């Protein structure tokens, strides 16, 4: 078959479709019905008896007028920025460090150790850290005291709670990100490095011009995944602060959950879901434009 012919390119097209078809169908059949249900519910309102009736944009107006919604939105954004920045930076540093460990078995042991906290379920992580962060008896303040720093209130302080939650999130997530980035680093063919070294590049220059650009797809994936995870944060908050103190850690998902399952306002929950989706979609598009766009093809 000649490479330039149209039947060849058609075959390629069909192959591509064939490769993605199973998963595509899976999501359409299994998930898009629930997704559309959820979106449709945002245009309805719940009335006593838990029926839903069409209400146009009424529920949207109600949610947008709700102070608690805006508060949870702001809190979620603050949380996401801190958690994702810390996680991605740390994961990058750690994965590069691990990559440079010459002994493979030592590297693997260390990697597995970094990954260990991610084995803990989110609820358990919440409990563990709540205990650690206890203002009086937690290990955290005891350690701070050891180095002469003052005690903090962590999860119980309105100003510290979001950062404290971000710490917990980083602790749980960094292992995932390290794995992905390390895998990315290790899949960079040696040919690139050899060629660059021949050209005289070394040290930091090597990283900046060769490694990081080639790592961009994986970095982009990590960034997107971490943002999605951070914006959808729920379990940790649910198990520790429940949105406290006084709403300082109220997050979008908590707002959604309360409305869906405690207040039986599925309509408001659906609107919140739509917002979460739009926020993440916006970020996904942004990420695509800025990072994933630059892919190096040889």
């Amino acid at each position: 078959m000649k490479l330039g012919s149209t039947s060849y390119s058609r075959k390629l097209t069909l192959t591509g479709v064939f490769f993605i078809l199973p998963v595509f169908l899976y999501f359409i059949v299994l998930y898009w019905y629930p997704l559309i249900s959820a979106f449709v519910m945002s245009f309805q309102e719940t009335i006593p008896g838990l029926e839903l009736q069409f209400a146009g944009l009424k529920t949207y107006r109600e949610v947008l007028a709700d102070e608690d919604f805006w508060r949870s939105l702001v809190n979620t954004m603050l949380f996401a920025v801190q958690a994702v920045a810390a996680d991605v930076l740390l994961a990058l540093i750690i994965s590069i460090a691990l990559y440079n460990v010459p002994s493979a078995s030592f590297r693997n042991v260390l990697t597995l150790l970094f990954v260990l906290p991610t084995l803990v379920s989110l609820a358990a992580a919440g409990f563990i850290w709540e205990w650690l962060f206890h203002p009086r008896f937690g290990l955290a303040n005891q350690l701070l005291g050891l180095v002469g720093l003052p005690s903090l209130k962590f999860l119980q302080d309105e100003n510290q709670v979001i950062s404290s939650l971000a710490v917990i999130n980083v602790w749980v997530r960094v292992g995932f990100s390290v794995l992905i980035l390390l895998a990315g680093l290790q899949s960079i063919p040696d040919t690139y490095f050899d060629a660059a070294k021949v050209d005289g590049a070394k040290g930091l220059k090597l990283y900046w011009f060769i490694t990081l650009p080639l790592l961009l797809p994986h970095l982009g994936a990590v960034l997107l995944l971490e943002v999605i995870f951070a914006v959808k944060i729920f379990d940790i908050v649910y198990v520790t602060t429940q949105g406290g103190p006084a709403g300082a850690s109220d997050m979008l998902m908590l707002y959604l959950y309360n409305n869906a399952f405690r207040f039986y306002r599925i309509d408001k929950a659906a609107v919140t879901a739509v917002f979460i989706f739009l926020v993440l979609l916006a970020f996904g598009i942004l990420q695509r434009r800025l990072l994933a766009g630059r892919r190096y093809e040889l």
Partner: protein
Amino acid sequence: MRQKIKWGVVLVLFVLAGGLTFAGGGQEAVAAAETVAIDFWTHWCSNNEYFEPFWVDAAVQFNSVHPEVKFSINLNCVPYEGYEAKYSSAFDVKKGPGLYTGMTHVWAGQFGVADPMPKDIADKMDEVLIGSAAPFGMYNGVRYGLPLEGGNFMMMYINVGLFKEAGLDPNKPPKTYTEMLEYAKKLTKYDSGGKITQAGYAIRYKGHPFGIADKSAPFYHAWGAEWLSWDEKKASGYLNSPEAVDALAYYAGLVQTAKVSSVDIDNPAGLFGQGLAGIMFRESWYEAWLLANAPDIDFKIYPLPSQKMESGYTNNFPWAYNVGNQISDTDKKWLWEMIRWYINSQDVRKEHYVKSVMLPAYNDIIDDPTFTNMKVFDAWKTMVAGRAAPTYYIPPAHEVLTIIGQATLDAMYAKGTPKAVLDKAAKDIDVILAKYK
């Protein structure tokens, strides 16, 4: 390659094992007698080791009295976290359980999935239910469910050691909230920076606003306020009445002006357990927790103080056993028959609560030494014989109490004056209640 085969075999074995677990446990073969198997869902398993499993035994006992039916109850312990989602998804597809623990005003009122009680059982309930349990299981004046507990409303716990240290007599608890404030002032200790290290009164400030509202309720009630009127479907005039504003001013004042309560140190349960709180309000179950977790704390339990009137007993979690209306009529008939038997057998009920060491919901069995020997008994008996505080078992209860809790928190954190926060909360609640007109 060998590795791959090995792991492939391991994988297949795991899947088989898991699959077999699921495959087994199908329907029982229909026996000669009528077979009724009731699914019982409850999230209370972790609260008390004996209380829920008892129903499985009770079914067996019931069987021996009614050999014409093969009646059994299958216990399914549901986690508390997310139980609302689990229940509602099952009811949504019309596969709800036959018996389940839940707040009746939600499942009967909001979802309409509870079967009303037959008249004779309801009448007997009215007869034997203790005051604090009487409104549980009811919605709109109709009885649906069996209350679980009779003792879980707030009472006053005092730390004997700290009282003595402060020169107070542990046998003379404060009778009014004004008195309590004076006691609390003597019981509070501060560090050099002015922060509270020992709370005079341990106030609840952490967690979901619903819980915050729940814990502050006695204060509003003692000042003679009510949160809302379900008949009129409004909160304005109630939640922001002068009495309510006074109550919140006192409550927030504990933190802000009198400085006998702290939003810094810990939640009441933990604080009191560590011997760092003089006075605390908690339900009856806390006694057992203290005895297990903090055996060194010497404590006494008293009825709540009064102000303009008694605080009264109140509980915002009216847990009841409800009968689901999605099961077959035969199943329903026999389940109610079993409940009828339970209600009419004083011994069975006594066994239930004695073995669980839980304060009973029935007044005809409260004299058992298991209960009279509890530290909480005298206070409990006094309060049960006293005022029944207002209850808010309405479909939007959760939403409403969350708003009230947030208002209370705002006042506690000085984000607004009591009048301002209550005015706003009342307005927000009016909007919600208006939907039910």
